[in-house]
């Protein structure tokens, strides 16, 4: 759908190779995410999923290749440069500032913004989405339950007013009952027009809400298709969905 309307991709990787020391992690990775899409990245352990996210955000510099944001090459720009221009990440295991209050956590999400009234409006929007968060505003984030922490983590990311949200294993460490709710939340955020790029072990669940998906294997994109096609792919069903 978005491929046809001529707009540049929101986030793009062009021939990216990444090394940790001598270890070659990402190999000629190439893909793009368009505005408003929900894309998932699948792959086994050590396939380079987290490195992909870190490269997109600038926490890891690629050895060759480029990262583009809104058509602009940002490969050498800092994390804050990219965050200011609409990328943000919900890190693995949520990683809230546990000793800081929920309110401080949310406001830190808006660290680079200075428009007070817009920030307050976004805070209200987050309270609407997660009424539980509002009740716990002055509590230390470390005292919240796993599900509540997930809400704060998503709220914190949304506070930067992102165009695209990178999510690293959002359902990891959540009680099974919460995983479903978690995906509902992702869908809800997506419905507000934020593009989402989610790295997930739970391939079935991720593909059921995604528009498109990629499969990464030892640093190479081996499959790139719509979510329906991937769900129907017998090879993928065998290796990631646990079916024989």
């Amino acid at each position: 759908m978005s491929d046809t309307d001529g707009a540049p991709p929101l986030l793009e990787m062009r021939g990216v190779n990444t090394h940790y020391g001598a270890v070659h992690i990402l190999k000629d990775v190439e893909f793009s995410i368009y505005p408003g899409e929900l894309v998932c990245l699948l792959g086994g352990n050590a396939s380079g999923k987290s490195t992909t996210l870190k490269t997109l955000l600038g926490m890891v510099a690629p050895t060759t290749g480029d990262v583009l944001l809104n058509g602009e090459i940002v490969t050498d720009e800092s994390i804050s440069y990219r965050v200011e221009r609409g990328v943000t990440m919900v890190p693995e295991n949520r990683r809230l500032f546990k000793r800081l209050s929920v309110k401080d956590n949310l406001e830190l999400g808006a660290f680079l913004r200075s428009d007070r009234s817009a920030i307050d409006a976004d805070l209200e929007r987050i309270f609407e989405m997660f009424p539980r968060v509002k009740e716990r505003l002055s509590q230390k984030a470390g005292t919240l339950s796993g599900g509540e922490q997930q809400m704060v983590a998503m709220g914190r990311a949304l506070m930067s007013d992102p165009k695209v949200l990178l999510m690293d294993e959002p359902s990891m460490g959540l009680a099974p009952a919460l995983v479903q709710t978690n995906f509902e939340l992702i869908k809800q955020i997506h419905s507000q027009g934020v593009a989402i790029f989610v790295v997930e072990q739970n391939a079935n669940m991720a593909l059921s809400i995604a528009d498109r998906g990629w499969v990464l294997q030892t640093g190479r994109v081996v499959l790139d298709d719509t979510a329906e096609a991937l769900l129907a792919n017998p090879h993928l069903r065998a290796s990631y969905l646990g079916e024989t």
Partner: protein
Amino acid sequence: MPPPVTAENNKLNRRLGVDAFLTFMRVVMSTFVILGLLMFIGQQIDPDNFVASRINPDATGLTAAQFEGLVISGLSQGAMYGLIALGYSMVYGVLGFINFAHGEVFMVGAMTGMITSNKLDESGAWESNFLLSLLFVLVIAIICSTLTAIIMERVAYRPLRGSPRLIPLITSIGVSFFIQNVSVVLLGPGAKSYPTLPEWLSKKRELLGFVTIEGTRLMVLVVAAISMVALWYLVERTKIGKAMRAVAEDKEIASLMGINVNRTIVTTFAVGGAMAGVAGILWGLLFRSVVHTTGFLPGIKAFSAAVVGGIGNMGGAMAGGITLGSAESVAPLILLEPWGIDGVSQLKDAVAFLVLIFVLLVKPTGLFGERLSTEDRA
């Protein structure tokens, strides 16, 4: 049948042994303190009472004025320890290591204060326009100690970022020696004195009708309180402070929020350095003498104060400073003297560190410290 001797059981037995020893130490120290206190009270009621006449025949008891003097000098001393302790605590909070060269930042503040105030004294401004000169001296000292802290971070600690925590710790001891020796080279090894303070400042005055306090000490308390409030405002109410708290907790995630981690760390050093500079000036004005080793003992005591209050916690650093300062001033006379120990006022340094040991025995995280789980500090 006795339990089998296994590695597990050995470990357990050793742990029980350590626990028993710690409990024993807690009991001994608490008993010593409580008995000392009881005997002190007895002595106050009747200096020739049954117990005192045996253990401490020279007992005289303290007058109210003497006691007041001890408390006030303890508080003002403690306020300065607290100001220095803030620097230890903040740097520990952000980088997780003890910057032992922080005492030298304090010394730099006291030294530059000495140089500036003597220059002003020569030009006559110190006498003719004292308040303005004092402000000028304060500003210069703050600038110099802040710069010292910033350069220290840039040159000595930043290249070591990411190395094991022991390495910057050892480096900080080296930095400390380096700064002391630079001071000797530049200013010589002898003690140097501050110019005389005007009479209206240093004289004793009545406060609220019942406290007599030396003007200089009052100034120390007031300036320390103002600095503390300013720091609290900076850390709790401003964006810079929020960044500092975020970086202290998780540098990687802080950088994900768009916070410039390096700049925040420099800010932390700078703020700690400014506080040490203020403490340095106050110290200089109060004791009117500085040497290149001036930073050592107050530095170590402020570090102890930070630990007593719970390292990483700012309110704790100030409370720890006040606790340590008051204890070293008051405790020798009310806890040691009743035991018949001679020359107790000489023992104030020992008392300061006994307070540290005692607090660590009773509450290992410090007075206001939170338990830092391995997860938090990873």
